[in-house]
């Protein structure tokens, strides 16, 4: 796959369709993948990678990259295409300046996931059908895919590309993913249990802002948390409003726009399951206002900037199932 992608990227550079390529490269460690922009065939050969560690959603980087001259090639996994469409819906970049190639994805793992299986000294990773083989300086170890996939990939919502100029490999289908199971489990708890759960999780937050910085829905020119005029940003910890409410406010800001790509949880250094906040909103929206998948199509009207005269009353919250 990686080879095909490099070859096609070179062609497109060569024939002048694009002048840059947005892809992935290895960081300090092989599992430490970072998004990168390549401008020459040599750079592609030298650094471009695509393997089971390449979880990063590249769509967000288009906001900045399309401000530059020329057209850019971007590789999009199925779930990235939803973010891609959502950003287009919000007029965040110029579609004319992007050449999008859809690529298949059988789910991604992470350095952390692999290390949790007791491996160290990781030197590479290979995929073969349902198996993923991790190479280390000590041994090669083969796993069944499901064993080491990230949570978001185990509950993958779609293998279907909803936006692309061309496709490498086969397109997949929208899946029935059980991704709301954990949300439902939380909903079934007592309020005390839920509160205990969330307090223990949110208390871990160190406010590194990684979740916000990686989130494809968080592309604001200026984030409210960085803007004293918004009334919620605090330079010093004069009060704890922002600290306490950061994740709730952020989840609300992206509600109806979040495509559930799961990047927030992937990058959280404290392993806070932030996607469970976003998924709660998505689940509620689906249940109360009808199924809605952000980014499924360009130009759709997000549920929070929409209404029907017959919408449920907020009091439904008091009457719903659960404790």
């Amino acid at each position, binding site marked *: 796959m990686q080879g095909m992608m490099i070859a096609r990227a070179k062609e497109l550079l060569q024939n002048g369709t694009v002048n840059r390529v947005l892809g992935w490269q290895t960081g300090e460690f092989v599992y430490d993948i970072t998004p990168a922009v390549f401008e020459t065939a040599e750079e592609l050969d030298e650094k471009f990678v695509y393997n089971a560690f390449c979880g990063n959603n590249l769509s967000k980087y288009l906001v900045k990259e399309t401000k530059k001259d020329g057209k850019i090639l971007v590789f999009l996994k199925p779930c990235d295409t939803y973010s891609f469409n959502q950003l287009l819906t919000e007029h965040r970049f110029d579609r004319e300046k992007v050449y999008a190639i859809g690529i298949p994805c059988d789910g991604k793992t992470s350095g952390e996931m692999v290390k949790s299986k007791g491996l160290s000294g990781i030197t590479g990773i290979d995929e073969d059908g349902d198996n993923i083989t991790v190479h280390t300086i000590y041994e090669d170890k083969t796993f069944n895919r499901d064993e080491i996939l990230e949570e978001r990939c185990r509950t993958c919502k779609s293998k279907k590309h909803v936006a692309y100029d061309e496709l490498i490999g086969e397109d997949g289908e929208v899946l029935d993913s059980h991704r709301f199971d954990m949300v439902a489990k939380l909903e079934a708890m007592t309020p005390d249990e839920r509160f205990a759960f969330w307090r223990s999780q949110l208390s871990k937050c160190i406010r590194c802002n990684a979740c916000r910085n990686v989130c494809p829905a968080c592309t604001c020119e200026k984030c409210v948390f960085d803007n004293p005029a918004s009334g919620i940003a605090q330079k010093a910890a004069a009060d704890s409003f922002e600290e306490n409410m950061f994740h709730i406010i952020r989840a609300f800001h992206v509600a109806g726009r979040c495509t559930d790509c799961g990047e927030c949880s992937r990058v959280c250094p404290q392993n806070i399951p932030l996607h469970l906040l976003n998924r709660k909103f998505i689940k509620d929206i689906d249940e109360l206002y009808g199924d809605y998948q952000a980014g499924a199509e360009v130009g759709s009207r997000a549920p*929070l900037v929409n209404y029907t005269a017959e919408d449920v009353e*907020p009091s439904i919250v008091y009457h719903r199932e659960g404790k």
Partner: protein
Amino acid sequence: MPEVNAYKPKIVAFCCNWCSYAGADLAGTNRLNYPADVKIIRVPCSCRVNPMFILRAFQRGADGVILCGCHPGDCHYTTGNYYARRRMTLLFSMLDYLGIEKERTRVEWVSAAEGAKFAATMNDFVSTVAALGENKRLEDLRCKE
């Protein structure tokens, strides 16, 4: 032992200028009592109320927050309360999901003619919130244990 009856809940009520604030005025004109714990903030429309304001109130020590607007279909700005309705439904559901007592938040549609409803709503809301006691949870969601 502190006095049990000394507890007075802090209630913030956001009222839209056209219906509910006028309804509150009517309650006053008709001398309909409700507890002094309710403090009203006037906003042009229920759709002006950012969930941020509600979170802010809770975090600053409010024990209950209620949003009052025109009845759906009667919004002075035609559609404002429809958006408010969705926003608040999702916000309340989220607060409940976080384990915050759901009875601390409420939306009520009160028209300019419903002074009695306004007073009754406030009486009911204050007693509901008072029964829950102080709001500790949102004030300290991220307590370092």
